[in-house]
């Protein structure tokens, strides 16, 4: 729109100019409102506990120090951070692999089985086991206290499979056929031709799945003992604070909480802007829904 209205400058009346100014102000306010909680956390993490308790800390740290960071980075926090990194790596790789292995055959119209497979997969988006039956399943599979309890319940997301399927359907048939003529098997075509052409969707899916594992606390809360906690659940126990109806909870001062939260969101903040082009495209593939 911006492009095609530029030549129409003559038409710009006072009303529109007022609007542009207001719009810019609104956008600035939205940007501030979005970033404020993050900046406030950062400010708290560099402030002294005393200043926070007294309510003196705003966007600028008071009683500036980096001791909190040194303290957090020496403590058990690192262990949980390490767990999260392992879960995210293992989880994301298996999610990507198995989702692609499902989505690719689903994208082939000539596969007769798809008449059955597609509804079989999609139905699970609209109806499924309750909280309880999922819990009972994990317990009876003896997955408690294993990495499986953390990863398996959410390993393949049907919604993401649908996005991948739509992407695979848009791939050039000619290239795949050419691969087969050159002697590649069906799997070879998938591995050597389809996947390398699918970088945009694979980048999107990597981000989505990695964020999902990185942020997950719920499976840990249900199934994992303390040594195996990911950092997200560790954060939850310190945020909740002792005294709540939660045996794992512990009381920790606000600057330590803030510091741990900052360190946990940091990797996501550093990565997501660079894949923006891809995931915006990826979201459009699904057409609708989140």
């Amino acid at each position: 729109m911006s492009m095609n209205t530029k030549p129409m400058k003559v038409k710009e009346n006072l009303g529109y100019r007022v609007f542009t100014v207001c719009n810019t102000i609104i956008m600035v306010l939205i940007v501030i409102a979005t970033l404020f909680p993050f900046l406030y956390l950062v400010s708290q993490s560099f402030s002294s506990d005393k200043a926070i308790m007294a309510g003196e800390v705003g966007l600028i740290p008071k009683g500036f120090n980096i001791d909190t960071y040194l303290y957090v980075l020496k403590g058990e926090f690192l262990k949980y951070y390490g767990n999260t990194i392992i879960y995210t790596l293992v989880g994301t790789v298996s999610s990507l692999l198995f989702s692609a292995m499902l989505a690719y055959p689903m994208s082939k119209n000539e596969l007769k089985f798809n008449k059955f497979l597609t509804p079989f997969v999609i139905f699970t988006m609209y109806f499924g086991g309750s909280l309880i039956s999922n819990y009972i399943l994990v317990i009876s599979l003896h997955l408690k206290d294993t990495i499986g309890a953390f990863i398996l319940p959410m390993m393949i997301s049907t919604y993401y499979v649908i996005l991948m399927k739509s992407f695979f359907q848009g791939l050039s048939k000619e290239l795949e056929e050419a691969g087969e003529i050159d002697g590649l098997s069906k799997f070879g075509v998938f591995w050597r031709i389809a996947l390398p052409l699918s970088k945009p969707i694979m980048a999107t899916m990597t981000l989505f799945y990695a964020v999902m594992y990185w942020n997950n606390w719920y499976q840990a809360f249900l199934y994992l003992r303390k040594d195996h906690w990911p950092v997200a659940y560790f954060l939850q126990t310190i945020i909740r604070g002792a005294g709540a109806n939660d045996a794992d909870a512990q009381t920790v001062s606000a600057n330590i909480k803030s510091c741990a939260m900052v360190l946990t969101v940091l990797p996501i903040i550093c990565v997501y802007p660079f894949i923006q082009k891809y995931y915006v495209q990826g979201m459009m593939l699904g057409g609708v829904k989140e």
Partner: protein
Amino acid sequence: MSSNRRGLAMGPTQNKQTFGKHMGKYWQLYAMLIIPIIYYVVFRYIPMFGNIIAFRKYRAGGNIFGDEFVGFKYFKQFIGDKTFWRAFANTLTLNISYLIVRFPLTLIFALLINEIRNVHWKKFVQTVSYLPHFISIVIMCGMIKELVSTSGPINNLIAQFGGEKISFISEAKWFSTIFITSGVWQSLGWGTILYLAAMSNINPSLYEAAAVDGAGHFKRVWHITIPSILPTITTLLILDIGGLVGSGGAFEKVYLLYNPMTYETADIISTYVFRMGIGGGNFSYATAVGLFEGIINLTLLSIANIASKKLTDSSLW
């Protein structure tokens, strides 16, 4: 007649041949499906059928499909339970008020972003607005608690204007405000993606023609932009309505933000299911409630889907 008979006789063998041929050609694709299909059976369909324990008594460590049939016993129990109806009402109230606030705001935000001329500024606003979508619900709730705490910035502001400090997180009447505001904060930017995509697909010549006809800027938005994205608006709205009874992503947020002091307004169906089932060990009872929620959801979504098909030609299935 004879050809007919031959046809009948040939049928099965021919089918077998083509089936064999089909498998010969595509067996590798089928092989790829083995693990994913086992996964769906075990982790999606077994729990789905595990819902049967709503009708069968389940004992911890016993058969995961329950031990003995008890009929609608648990359904009768929760229908007579006031706490369940409170959770049901809260689910509806929270979801509906959240939808009413979030839906128009997202649309307006998308329209406003679309008006930004400076490409870099536009990209910056979009990038910043997507950020909250990627934040862990744990961290978001942690931030909320810091912001509304009695020594936090919001209470400081209130104090500065001479007001009384409020303990937002432990007062039932503030729960929906916290829930809705934080929800809008987290989803506003992400929600614009599909609208902006729809807007970028509008043919520029439409705007040019309208401009030649003397339509001002706002008229063009009203008569071209809005009608062009109307199908997207309808579809998204219908989908949202389909999810009104569902807990969707709300379970984790409510679970992390509520406490016994705010149950009155904050307890929703899924948190109730959780407390009854995993907290209290009443697995069958909690499953009955969960199943009830799931069925209402499916019904609402089906109705929404039919409506969507009729109105916009786009549907989920």
